[in-house]
């Protein structure tokens, strides 16, 4: 299976990323999405399988992997974490969307939390 | 308010100076100048003319002497 070269978020995930950006604390959607990816890895590693996650839609914005991972470190990291994968960017996409949705659930519950709290 | 009584205080002050420093100047002249100025406070030009006449008339008497 070949990996994707464009990461397209779902509409809802994109909206959540844009909300994060609108706080002024994130430079752009990509930064927010990467943050969400790490959030998913930190908090949901055991219960989330990026290999089988089905991204609901691709109606969100489209990002070339070169702009998301210009130094390749993200792909290397995902290969290191998921040694079985040959499609780290498919995993990345799944983690980003999932992570953003989880952050979205938190926003719906308690309002926009401080970024520092999301890091804890 | 034009009573002559009320400006005597002012004239007395002048009289002291006249008497001690300029006794050759007649007291009456000084008095008349003061009254002329008092009467013409609202018409300065006329006041000056009146004073000039008083001094001129006095100086004529010196010249004739």
């Amino acid at each position, binding site marked *: 299976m070949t990996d994707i070269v464009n990461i397209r978020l779902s509409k809802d995930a994109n909206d959540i990323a844009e909300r994060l950006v609108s706080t002024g604390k994130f430079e752009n959607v990509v930064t927010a999405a990467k943050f969400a990816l*790490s959030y998913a890895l930190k908090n949901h590693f055991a219960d989330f399988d990026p290999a089988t996650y089905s991204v609901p839609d691709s109606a969100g914005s489209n990002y070339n992997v070169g702009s998301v991972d210009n130094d390749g470190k993200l792909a290397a990291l995902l290969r290191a974490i998921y040694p079985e994968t040959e499609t780290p960017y498919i995993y990345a996409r799944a983690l980003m969307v999932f992570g953003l949705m989880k952050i979205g659930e938190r926003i719906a519950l308690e309002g926009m939390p401080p970024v520092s709290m999301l890091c804890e | 308010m034009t009573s002559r009584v009320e400006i005597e205080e002012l004239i007395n002050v002048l009289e002291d100076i006249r008497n001690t420093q300029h006794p050759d100047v007649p007291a009456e002249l000084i008095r008349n100048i003061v009254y002329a100025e008092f009467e013409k406070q609202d018409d300065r030009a006329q006041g000056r003319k009146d004073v000039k006449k008083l001094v001129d008339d006095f100086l004529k008497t010196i010249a004739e002497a």
Partner: protein
Amino acid sequence: MLRFTSLTVENFGPFKGTQTIDFTNENGVTIIWGNNGRGKTTLLNIFRYALFGRYKNRRGTEVDLTTLPNIEGRTEGNYNFKVVLKMINDTTRYELTRQCKVRQGIAVPKNNDDYETLVFLKENGSVLAPDARAHVLKVIMPDEVSRFFLFDGELLQEYEELLLEGTEVGSKIKDSIEKILGVPVLTNSAIDSQAVLEEYRKEKNKIAQSNAQTQKIATQMEGLEAEKREQNAELERLQGDLAGQYEERSRLEGDLQQSDHVRTLLDRMDSLEADIATKKGNKADILAQIVAQTKDAWRGLVSYRVDSILQTVAAELTELENREATHAIEKRLVDDMKQAAHAHHCQLCDQDVDEHHVQALLDRIGAYTRGVSGLNGEEQAALQSLRVRKATLESMRASSKAEILSLLETQLDKLEVEIDDSERQLKAVREELERHGDVEELANSTKAAVSALAQCLKKIENLKEGIQLTKNKLKEIENALSTLEAKLNRVSTDVDLLRAGKKVSVCEQIHDIFEKGIAAYRDKLKTDVERDATELFVGISNDPDYVRLKINDNYGLSMVHVSGELVPLRSAGFEHVVALSLIGALHKNAPLRGPIIMDSPFGRLDPDHKRNITKSLPNMSEQIVLLAYTHEVDEQQAREMLADTLRKEYRLIRYSSFHTEIEAQ
């Protein structure tokens, strides 16, 4: 001495119809009682209107004539109003009538132009011509000194300005005081005798110029006189400009004072805007720092997972590497044994190996080869993979940004609250400013006014400097002229010249008498005013430790404590007492003598002071008219204290809101 004998008002202010107050021809006090709104202050203003033709409101602005007729009279179609003031000055009887009549053809007057004003002054029954009328009124009651005859108790506070240097109000009051005391008579005499002296000097100089002996000196003197005339003209111009600038300063300060509240609001607005801008700048900085942190925050965030996976990877890797290491050691041993068996010689111990031991070695080699195997291909691949994973995971370790982000976000939250607070305050200030007008226009006009005042103050400083320089120059010229004059007198033998010189000498003496008289009279006045004001003051004051008053160059009076110290700050009540003492002392010492009409002079005085002032009234002037509200001072007590100096009492009775009747008691 001037005395009012009656005042008749017709359809004026609250006084409907024709009403008369009769004052007696005897020395003493007339009291007119009336509550607030019944017309006491109007009566005071009616006296002013009769004498000076002006009617001003409480703020000092002239009012429209259309507001002066009685309101009930107006509804009945009567828009005219009149006042007749009868007076005696020594033995001369005066009747002053001032009335406003609606012009023919106008049914209802809408502005001042719809009225014609008629003024008549009868002297001993004969109507005076307008010029004569103006002259008499200026002599018997000059406008500049009216404040000492017709005054509102509420304005007594401004006499405090006499204690301060260089204030506009203080300067005006001082001029009025000197006017009432007759100082201008002396200053005018000095100025006019100086003018006469100049003429005689010119005449003398002309004679000296026509004489060969004295021509040169006379010509020099003529030159200096011309220069002196120039400098005097310049001095007059500068002094005129300075007076103009003082007026301008007063006007600007008045405007700024009126707009004081607006300026405060504008300053507040500027301050808030600056504060908000700074804080928004700080907010932007903090957000920029947060954005810089969140850019890499994903790495710190993933570190927890990285560490956990790293542990597993490290363990697996260690196991494989150990196996590989063990296999390497054993392979080395097998190789050595193989070599010893083949060569029948052990290189390790450097011993020959016999056949029996060779066989033993071969058996052992067989056993090792069978028992130990290294990493297979898959395991090798796994080992490599694990190494790569470990290296990658280790390189991805990063510290959490949680702490620094928390710090920055706390600062941000605080700033946002402060910005919101400031913006709310700014909104309130702007709304209040908008009630006064367009904000930008207000800001511009206030800035312009402040700038105009600064410029005016600078001009005043420059003018003062210019005046001093000009005065210095004049002094130099005078000295030079005196020297030449003395020389002229020494060398001249011409009879005409000597005669002219004598005339000049007499004029100089006359001028000198008046010139010195000014300072001497001022000193005397100050001594007398201080003495008489002290006498009145100690009679009124209820504090025995305040033993006297001390006068300054502006006729300001300070209270002196028994210790000799000047009392530095005095209450509003004592301010009134001192002001009344000054006014009484001025009346005693003034060439101008007349009645005092005072409206509510008791102000914030306690009952003791009110009693003492009432008792002192007859000492302040021969004729006193007191306008007081009921219970401002105890009526019965006032009657008892004034006893037979109380001549008449009137009461202003309310018939309706717009109709007051003056009733004799």
